[in-house]
């Protein structure tokens, strides 16, 4: 499954570690929420970066005390019609100021890219190669946004106000 990061197809430095697999001494790993909760200290003590796969029905607040030490949080879209992770993503970015990698996993298709970017995701495990290749094109599709989110894109309401004021200055 191709990974899109920084707007491009990229190598995934993280390996997913099964819950019963021995802990490798180094390297970047992604672990389940259960393993993370059970084994937090050991996981954080090792060399190599740590990411957690957080299910969409588990309260994101549990993760908050550890955010500063996490290199990645992967949120899950079990099907793309299940939108819980959008709320989790916005909370992580906008309320808890999480700055690490925020990865979308599961059924990720090009049709969600814009929504996901706006919610704060910055990496994407994309189901289809063609969608991953179309990333840069797809995210340019929209230039108008009605809602303010943490991504900082200017909203239509504010764009209008700016236009109005600049007209005012001109006359």
């Amino acid at each position, binding site marked *: 499954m191709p990974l899109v990061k920084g707007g491009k197809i990229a190598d995934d430095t993280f390996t997913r570690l099964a819950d019963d697999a021995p802990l490798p001494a180094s390297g970047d790993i992604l672990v389940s929420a259960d393993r993370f909760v059970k084994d937090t200290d050991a996981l954080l003590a090792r060399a190599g970066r740590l990411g957690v796969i957080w299910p969409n029905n588990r309260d994101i607040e549990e993760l908050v005390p550890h955010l500063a030490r996490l290199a990645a949080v992967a949120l899950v879209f079990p099907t*793309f019609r299940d*939108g819980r992770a959008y709320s989790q993503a916005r909370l992580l970015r906008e309320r808890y100021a999480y700055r690490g990698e925020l990865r979308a996993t599961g059924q990720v298709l090009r*049709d969600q890219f*814009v929504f996901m970017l706006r919610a704060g995701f910055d990496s994407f495990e994309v189901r289809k190669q063609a969608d991953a290749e179309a990333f840069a094109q797809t995210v340019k599709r929209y230039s108008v946004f*009605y809602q*303010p*989110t943490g991504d900082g894109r200017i*909203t*239509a309401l504010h764009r209008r106000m700016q236009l109005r004021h600049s007209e005012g200055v001109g006359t």
Partner: protein
Amino acid sequence: MYAYDEIDRTLVNERVSEFRDQVKRRLSGELTEDEFKILRLQNGVYLQLHAYMFRVAIPYGTLSSDQLRRLAHIARRYDRGYGHFTTRQNIQFNWIKLAELPDALADLAEVGIHAMQTSGNNMRNVTSDQWAGVAPGEIEDPRIWSELLRQHTTLHPEFSFLPRKFKIAITASDHDRAAIKIHDIGLRLVKNEKGETGFEVLVGGGLGRTPFIAKTIKHFVHGRDILSYVEAILRVYNQYGRRDNIYKARIKILVHELGIEKFSREVEDEWQHIRGSSLQIDDEVIEDIRSRFSYPAYEKLPHMPDELRQAAADPAFEAWRKNSVASHKVQGYSIVTISLKPVGGPPGDATAEQMDALADLAEKYSFGEIRVGHEQNLALPHVAKRDLPALWRALDKLGLATPNVNLISDIIACPGLDYCSLANARSIPIAQELTRRFANHELANLIGRLHINISGCINACGHHHVGHIGILGVEKNGEEVYQITIGGRADENAALGNLIGPGVKFEEVADVIEDVVEAYLALRERPEELFIDTVKRLGVEPFKERVYATR
């Protein structure tokens, strides 16, 4: 009328091109039907019994003449020459070809119409009072706020994949014509002691399999906070609404399971976090939206012009005027409701010719504006009283002057088994038969205000629970059977109807309704006591006795 600016137009065009790409990928097989389904639903495209159905949004029920002409064009060019106005200020076309949909959307986009989020598990078309801006005694025009919410809910990055569909309705009048109590969020415009605009917020209304009347969650939310408050409700719902069972996924179930107190505490907590954020709207933003609504330059006209006085001698005109013409906030003007319920016709249908002709009439007599109401009728919101007789003659020629607005043959019905793949039973033929039974205008007038609502299955698209008389089609041993309720209503006193007895067969429905009506005529205290009030006073029992005595 709200005029789109370049920003709104750009967004609609961007959406059309995205959908064009999605259709292309579906046709080439790049998208599976399963994947495509969700994408097309986000854009109002259902797969029905015979063909794709296409639902177009008419936000808060306001259309210009040009927009209505464009809907006529869609009906003619891409469909079979007619469209169906629904109970949620949408219009549906029943015979669209998938490959042509992007073109149809592009045609609509040219006049500022779209189909975004008219189906699917997202925030649906924001609806409002079809008399907004012209109803006497209104607090202020609720469409300003409807438009603010329309924008905010369009392609929302967090709430486009909710557990289930989500509907918001807004009213600003004491008499609720927007049925806010049967919506996921109902907003009632109110003023606080300081004279500031805000909202009473209701939540958790809805019909379907488990009907609920919405409950008040907050008595006053200031206008500047309305986006953050709505967003707080949605965030709680998005995270905790049930996704394991589509019949339990609406917010009404969450509110019911948590209880309104706990639910409102959750919302309050969330709201405190986001209340002062960039979601707060200042007066300038509201004024900007307000400035893009244009209002007619009304003339100073007499309350009772000669033309109207003279026409009063014509009983046919008077019959129509009495139920189709309502008071306007400006002296000398009226609001004219146009019945889309001709005797023997499917409720809510209009042909392309009718739409074109109405667009012309609106230009001539109503400042180029048309409204769509949840009762599946249209309205011309600014007709000078002196023009009423001429307008009536023109409407009559078009078959659009049936004098039955709010009377028993002004029936709300869903498409039922004639079009809908979820249906258990026919709805339209029941409606058609009832309009024939009650075609006699004197009889209908004698009965007075009475709303019949018909749904072809438990999904309740025809709002049967809140009909004064509700008819619900179900399937029993392979047969269509109809359950009949009485006493429902959808207005400010919204209530769910009660069953009057065992279900009846298709052939018997009209007879039973006639019996119910006869019972009412015998039971009412005086002619002014409406059906709904008699039911309220006496309960279901006396009706049941009379109707089922001989069955």
